[in-house]
């Protein structure tokens, strides 16, 4: 587990409530900055995080909420202009080392990155990718789409009848532009090479392109 971080989450309550709970369980110190009085009061009663009733998109209030002490900050408010100012104020005025934005408008993702917010994500893009996913298989778990949907990372389990079981990576001759990045076997992790033999029960993390994604998964796990 990474060293305990001081994490600041800025935005409306319910989305961030569950995230805050998970982060606290991992041992991090969490501050929630919430602009709604009733929600702040509810959060303060229900969670061990520090709850500050403030508008994080007003730099003075973000500072008073303790932004200078934060190691990392997530801006997840309803409006992208607020998320941008929260992130920029956090890094430029308060020196927060890492800032992330959950943007609403997917077209703002590359814009935020161009404006210096390196980590900007939209739920829209992730959900669209998942909804459009043609491969539906209970053994396949999508991780994340990468780039602008230019590549995808998928976790897949090899069932007993999987074509890849008992064969080496080299023998499988996977399509170009794909990679088995790692193999989880029992309690261990392997970074496979051409001579690594895959086994039933292995969970593979597969990097592929939208164009060859289905073919790669079929070659590994079968139809």
């Amino acid at each position, binding site marked *: 587990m990474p060293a305990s971080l001081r994490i600041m989450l800025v935005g409306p309550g319910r989305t961030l409530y569950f995230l805050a709970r998970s982060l606290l369980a991992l041992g991090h110190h969490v501050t929630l900055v919430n602009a709604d009085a009733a929600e702040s009061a509810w959060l303060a009663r229900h969670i061990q995080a520090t709850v500050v009733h403030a508008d994080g*998109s007003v730099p003075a209030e973000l500072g008073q909420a303790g932004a200078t002490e934060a190691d990392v900050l997530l801006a997840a408010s309803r409006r992208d202009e607020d998320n941008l100012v929260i992130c*920029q*104020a956090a890094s430029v005025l308060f020196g927060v080392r890492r800032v992330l934005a959950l943007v609403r408008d997917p*077209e703002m993702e590359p814009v935020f990155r161009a404006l210096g917010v390196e980590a900007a994500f939209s739920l829209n893009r992730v959900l669209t990718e998942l909804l459009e996913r043609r491969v539906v298989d209970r053994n396949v778990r999508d991780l994340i789409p990468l780039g602008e949907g230019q590549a995808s990372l998928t976790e897949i389990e090899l069932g007993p009848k999987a074509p890849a079981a008992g064969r080496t990576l080299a023998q499988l001759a996977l399509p170009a532009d794909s990679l088995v990045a790692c193999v989880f076997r029992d309690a261990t992790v392997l970074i496979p090479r051409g001579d690594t033999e895959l086994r039933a029960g292995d969970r593979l993390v597969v990097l592929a392109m939208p164009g060859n994604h289905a073919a790669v998964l079929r070659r590994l796990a079968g139809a």
Partner: protein
Amino acid sequence: MSRASGPVVVIGCGRLGAYVAGELSRAGREVVVLDRRAEAFEALPAGFSGFTVEGDAGEYDALERAGLAKAGSVLACTANDNVNILAAQVAARVHGVPRVLARVFDTDRQELCDRLGIRTISPSEVLGVMFVRFLAEPDASDGPEGSDTSGGAA
């Protein structure tokens, strides 16, 4: 035709936006006004000959439809500081608009903009400076005839 002579895009059709758009249009400049409410355009003067675009300036699509790609200058003057700051950066950094000005009320946000290289105008500051100058003007009754002619230039 240089980029700098491209259309003026006014973002926000409140009192300031409507005034600026009206004046520039009267002076023969090509003007586009963006506002998220169609009713806001009623504030434009009768002779306004520019374009109006309905859309939310916090959304990338609306900013594109307002014509930032060809704009020579942009004034971001919605009622919301943060929208103005976002729009100004999209204009300057993403679309390369040569002259961009944002109205920003909050002084901390102004400082943020200074550090980010965005030019801003702060109404409080401008009015404050004007009022202080006004207070420094000589009193009308100090004139030689003691008449009530206006104070005149100092």
